[in-house]
């Protein structure tokens, strides 16, 4: 697989899996309004994944659904941060949104500035939706800033957040989050997976696997 396909799949997998995880809150978010907003953001992320899989599919002579659902769990290129099952903990869920959006913003900015015109164009389009995701994450982070549970969640997820961006972007991410990217930290980076990914994959691909090759 070439570098471009790898890059596209890494981001697409992040967006698909984080969208899946966030959509697990549908119906059980803290308030009705937040339920609607959170579910809508989750759907947006999956929409971004779709657009990225389409580019990757052209590169790999495949199709977007096959890339999203027909690979084995260990072939996914997502960062461990997005795999974690946090559905029992809103503070951790918001901590992940907050960290993920900050990391994603760095990544998108770099893509918009890249020479890959097709990918830069898509990144700019995605960014216009991400503005509202960031607004949502920021308002929650500001509100929970002094909550010990939220602070502990951010600290706990920080080594995972560092794994979302390229090593060269980690210092900048640390500056934005206000935490240290000390080299003694064990970063949970791309390439390794949590056991939760296999569980998620099982559920996510269940229907598609039930009738292989069917068109839905």
């Amino acid at each position, binding site marked *: 697989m070439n570098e471009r396909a790898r890059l596209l799949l890494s981001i697409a997998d992040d967006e698909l899996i984080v969208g899946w995880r966030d959509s697990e809150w549908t119906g059980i978010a803290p*308030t009705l*309004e937040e339920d609607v*907003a959170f579910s809508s*953001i989750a759907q947006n992320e999956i929409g971004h994944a779709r657009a990225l899989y389409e580019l990757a599919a052209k590169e790999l002579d495949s199709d977007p659904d096959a890339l999203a659902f027909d690979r084995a769990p260990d072939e996914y290129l997502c960062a461990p941060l997005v795999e974690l099952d946090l559905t029992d903990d809103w503070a951790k869920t918001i901590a992940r949104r907050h960290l993920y959006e900050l990391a994603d913003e760095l990544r998108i900015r770099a893509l918009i500035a890249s020479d890959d015109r097709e990918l830069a164009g898509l990144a700019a389009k995605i960014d216009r939706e991400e503005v*509202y995701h960031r*607004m949502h994450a920021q*308002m929650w982070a500001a509100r929970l800033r002094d909550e010990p549970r939220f602070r502990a969640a951010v600290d706990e997820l920080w080594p995972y957040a560092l794994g979302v961006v390229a090593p060269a972007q980690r210092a900048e991410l640390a500056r934005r989050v206000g935490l240290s990217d000390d080299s003694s930290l064990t970063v949970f980076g791309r390439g390794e997976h949590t056991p939760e990914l296999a569980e998620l994959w099982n559920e996510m691909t269940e229907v598609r696997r039930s009738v292989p090759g069917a068109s839905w």
Partner: protein
Amino acid sequence: MIFEVFRRERKGQPFAHAGSIDAPDASFADAWAREQYGRRGESEALWLVPRDAVHQITEWADEFDLKYRRVDGYSIKERLRVARERAGTAPAVDR
């Protein structure tokens, strides 16, 4: 705090009351209203008004039954037709 939400479907149309949002502050109201009342492209613009800012009138004094102030049973159509004829601006086909 409660925000009353008004939405406009298209430019040029009036804003209509859509519902309300109970949010801890204006930034939450913004994010929530955006999704609740606009995620399907059903609104071109929203107004969020803190309920406290709404000056409400519910009390009416009509002690003497001043029916003649109302337009019930008063047909303006005929008077309008005559007035238009007089002014020479009658429409070609009577609507």
